[in-house]
């Protein structure tokens, strides 16, 4: 008897992407301001969206060749496994089990985050350790749901979980007073606080109870595509280190004598060819979304309503831990 198996998603993602003419990118369905949210014209923008645009720019030299698939926490990995999306950039925490058991692979960390708590100012709480007995809103199936249980256990505190599948539902329940506190990644807290009825009445507590390295992920089994996504992010970080910006990239391309800059911008060596892209792939990325620092400040930093400090996400040379292997 002959039994054939229908192949799942095919391995050569780059060829597929080129054939269809766009990158299908999975982003946060809840519209996490600063990370991924559509404006009134349906144009997506944000820090995670910039990863999608950077990959599109690397492949097509055109950051608009992206289609976005909004995903809930529950849907995200299945969408990637099944081939519905080519790339997941949805503030997802890189953990060992996700990296090894889901058939996906994280390609880097675009935001070093940690889990925090937000509470109403009127409760007079100044530390998460004062939250014993509190009702806490959380999104289901996230690393935050697990950290929450572990942290309260470790600190001998009680809590009442109020768990929602969708982030919007959790936001609304917290806003209506159903919960005393809200927990998710600290970056998310700042973003969600902006959407509450009275943002000033809520305070983000100082404790960070976990490591949440957020980054893009792709399917396992397609090394070339994983390399493209990985190095698109590295190119952004390298560009910041080398002082290459959206504004000066063309000028540096014409005039720079720095060999590192020349390699980054495709004037020296054939780094683009080695991952199946044009020589100026990295220059296209920087032209499209700017370097890492520019993208950060524009979307979540001082140039945005979130005003998040660089902190851990500053370059290694400036006290942070963002560090990219060199292009050579």
């Amino acid at each position, binding site marked *: 008897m002959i*039994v054939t*198996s*229908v*192949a*799942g*998603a095919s391995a050569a993602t780059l060829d597929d992407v080129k054939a269809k003419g766009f990158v299908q990118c999975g982003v946060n369905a809840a519209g996490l301001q600063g990370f991924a949210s559509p404006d009134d014209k349906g144009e997506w923008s944000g820090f995670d969206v910039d990863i999608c645009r950077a990959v599109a720019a690397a492949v097509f030299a055109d950051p608009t060749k992206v289609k976005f698939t909004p995903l809930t*926490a*529950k849907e995200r*990995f*299945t969408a990637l*496994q099944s081939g519905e999306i080519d790339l997941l950039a949805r503030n997802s925490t890189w953990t060992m*089990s*996700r990296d*090894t*058991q*889901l*058939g996906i692979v994280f390609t880097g960390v675009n935001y070093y985050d940690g889990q925090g708590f937000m509470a109403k100012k009127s*409760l007079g709480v100044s530390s998460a350790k004062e*939250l*014993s*007995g*509190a*009702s806490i809103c959380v999104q*289901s*199936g*996230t690393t935050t*749901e*697990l950290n*929450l*249980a*572990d942290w309260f*256990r470790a600190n001998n505190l009680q*809590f*009442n*979980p*109020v*768990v*929602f*599948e969708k982030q919007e*539902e*959790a936001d*609304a*329940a917290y806003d*209506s*007073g*159903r919960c*005393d506190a809200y927990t998710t990644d600290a970056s998310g807290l700042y973003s969600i606080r902006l959407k509450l009825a009275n943002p000033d009445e809520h305070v983000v507590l100082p404790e960070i109870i976990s490591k949440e390295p957020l980054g893009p992920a792709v*399917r*396992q*089994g397609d090394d070339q595509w994983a390399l493209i996504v990985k190095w698109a992010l590295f190119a952004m970080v390298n560009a910041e280190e080398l002082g290459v910006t959206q504004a000066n990239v063309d000028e540096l391309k014409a005039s720079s004598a720095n060999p590192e800059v020349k390699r980054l911008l495709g004037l020296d060596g054939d780094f683009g060819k080695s991952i199946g892209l044009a020589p100026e792939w990295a220059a296209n990325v920087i032209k499209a979304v700017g370097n890492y620092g520019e993208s950060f400040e524009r979307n979540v930093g001082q140039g945005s309503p979130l005003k998040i400090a660089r902190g851990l996400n500053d370059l290694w040379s400036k006290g942070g831990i963002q560090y990219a292997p060199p292009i050579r």
Partner: protein
Amino acid sequence: MTLRDTAPSPLPVRRSSGGSMLYDPTIRGIVFQILIVLALVLFGWWIVHNTIVNLRAANIASGFDFLQTRAGYDIAQKPIEYSIDDTHGDAFVIGLLNTLIVAALGIVFATILGFIIGIARLSPNWLLSKVAAVYVETFRNIPLLLQLLFWYKAVLSVLPGPRQGLVLPLGSNLSNRGLIIPRPIAGESFDVVLWALLAGIVAAYGIHRWARARQMATGQIFPSGIVGLAVIVVVTLVAYAATGGPLTLEYPELKGFNFVGGLVLKPEFMALLLGLTIYTAAFIAEVVRAGILAISWGQSEAAYALGLRPGRTMRLVIVPQAMRVIIPPLTSQYLNLTKNSSLAVAVGYPDLVAVFAGSTLNITGRAVEVIFITMSVYLIISLITAAFMNWFNSRVALIER
């Protein structure tokens, strides 16, 4: 051939000149059925095999071993002991129990409310019947998910915080953390009271049997219902008093953010139960109305002619016949309610879908296995409900003479 030796078939059998088995309709029928069953089995096997091969090829872990691993997340409503160190299998049981609790309570309340509204709609009282009609047409025609969200948001936005909660009698409190009532705690000799209650029920049943027998023999009617109820209440109360009142109440206390102690009916649970009950009751009301209207007016007239009063006519003549018509569609409504309880996920109630097909699925990534188990559970619950209702239907069905 061998077939020619068998007894002649009562059906006209067409045989070819060769008389081969190939042309025998009975044999052919059996062969085709076997082939179809084989093809179905093969198809099922192919799907399973294909899934396993592809999951393996995509490097996705598969198998059911995750049920024994630590769950690590907490659940808001725990009918039995559960801690974050328990397994995903335990979390599954909690989710299943939560689903069964809300479905069972929903079925009971929806049936009571549905019968009241269905009979009210047939009432000669104009206002009553119109109110019932408006109820049915409103709640039947708005999607359940929207109703659930409405109840949840409505309940939440109206209720105050726990510190400003509405203080109700007996130390109860209603706030946006839910309805908190004192928890009864059974003392040492409380089982004596339970035994007394059981004895009361047995005695009431005995009175009922005796009253039936006496009515059959003499035609005299004895109010067995009220007397039986009185016996149960009196016996239980006497036992309760005799053992010195072994039931104490644990009153909820406001400590820190929330109430400690007492029984909590959370807003998520109340919204889901309210939504399911009100929605399904509208359908049950129509089923009941249809059942009663299906009994011809002549039945009532005949009963009145025999001197039965309207209430007794309804109870002894109309309803037993109407049940034949009511039960099969009522079963469908029960099944719908149970399945609709999976919308719990929208209002944050930790049912099977929210807990197992939500948190566990996401944490373990075993989407195929988790969804398969979840679907099987709903199928089994539904089949058991349907089997029970079919049995009940055969009990109440009219015995045709």
